């Protein structure tokens, strides 16, 4: 069952700013200085690409009905989180030509 905005119907506050159902406030992510992530509940639900880890493999599922994934690039990174610090151990960007 899809729960978009369980706490309140609608996706916008009355001043027309998005509520968490649509977009959460951008809070600075101290782990990744370069990226600010916008976390979106509706967007997560509608995402056309899903993935999960099976053993040492990443499985990626294309949920588009007609599109391949050629129009997307993928950034992958592996983060190690500890008690005091984060190391970004592996980071790579896929740039296909």
């Amino acid at each position, binding site marked *: 069952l899809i729960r978009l905005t369980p706490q309140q119907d609608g996706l916008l506050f009355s001043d027309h700013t998005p509520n968490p159902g649509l977009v959460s406030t951008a809070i*600075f992510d101290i782990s990744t200085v370069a990226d600010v992530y916008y976390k979106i509940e509706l967007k997560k639900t509608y995402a*056309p690409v899903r993935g999960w880890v099976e053993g040492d493999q*990443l499985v990626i599922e294309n949920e*588009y009905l007609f599109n391949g994934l*050629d129009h997307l690039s993928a950034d992958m990174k592996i983060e190690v989180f500890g008690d005091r610090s984060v190391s970004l151990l592996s*980071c790579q960007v*896929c740039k296909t030509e």
Partner: protein
Amino acid sequence: MTDRDSLISSTVFPLEVLTIDPGKQGKVTLPPIPKHEPHEEVFLAVIFRQRTSTAWADAGYEVASIQSRLGSKPAASIATTPANIQTSELSVEHTQQAYTISAADWSLAFDRATGFLSSWSFNERSLLHVNSSSPLLLPDFWRAPTDNDAASDAKDWKRWGLDSMTSSLRSISVSQTPSHITITTSSRMAPPILAWGFIVNTTYDISQSGAIRITVNIKPSGAAPRTVPHVGILLRLDSSLDHASWFGLGPGEAYADKKAAQRIGLWSADIDELHTPYEVPQENGNRMDTRWLRISDERGEGGLKVRMVRSEGEESQEKEQEQEQGLFEWTLSRYSAATLEAAKHPCDLIGKEEDAVLLRLDKKMAGVGTGACGPREYCCGIGDVCAWMSTDDRAGIGEKYEVKCVEWNLAFLLEPMRRACGPRY
């Protein structure tokens, strides 16, 4: 570059991933899991972005993201009471009213009549609200009803008096070893008039460094309600301690049944950002799956570091409840549950801020559920929609997202921060 964002290795994402046909799956072999300490955790993040701009989004727009743990869960984060940084003598002073425990740079006191922690200061700065008429640290079960709660669960909870619990002390004792002082209290938390309540046994284990390991055993007695809104403790902190940084799900709010859009990471936010201004003020701003939490002032100084620690009997309990060990939920707010509940609109909250900062540390917070097809008592279970709903998706809070009113053990380690930690923003 710092140790926080050092780039140690780099690999190339295979291209075939990106030629997955519609409806199909593709597999990519992951690089080896980097070496890490047993208590550290490794996460993989993949972000899919548009290569070129389209009529609806610019190039680089994030279309989808994946996050997944790599390798095993971390070894039990054994939050040992921190090594004693100093060797100053612990002393306990008994008076008629209080036990006062102090060392060179900190002191704390317990009220002997109520059993409550009544003051806690570190480097001559108070961590807790001063001159408070409310308890500074108390088990907490109530939440401002959500729109979904209001239809059914909140009525039950109020009938059981969960919004008006008070605590009465049965016994308090103090014991001392050279390196620790332990205060043990036994009290009963109950609503007025009704015959049921919780027996609450609390142990405060205080180390020379000034850290408190607080262990709470909560046991319902008498005919108790089936569920409670949440189970945790509520602290009233000094009002300057209004910044949080944490390792867990973020940056936005999360509840057990609406957390998929949040990501594990290191996050920081101030108390205003932690509040979600719903049009009808209600329970909000919960952060989940937290490994540690630091509360500080706006300069990143002072305050507390919080971790959940293991308590006796917890292992079997967690197995039963399929909870991951050492993860807790929390909110930091200037509004009490009663204030949120009373407010009809966000403007009604203006001027209703508490003098203290309210820090709620939860072992478990109920999900927000759904009221999409009406309150539970009108749920027929046979309609087109209801027929395929599991009990986890029915009207109200799904069964596995409820907090059962049973015996609970919780244990938190609260460490005063000796100096500024982490980056400042």
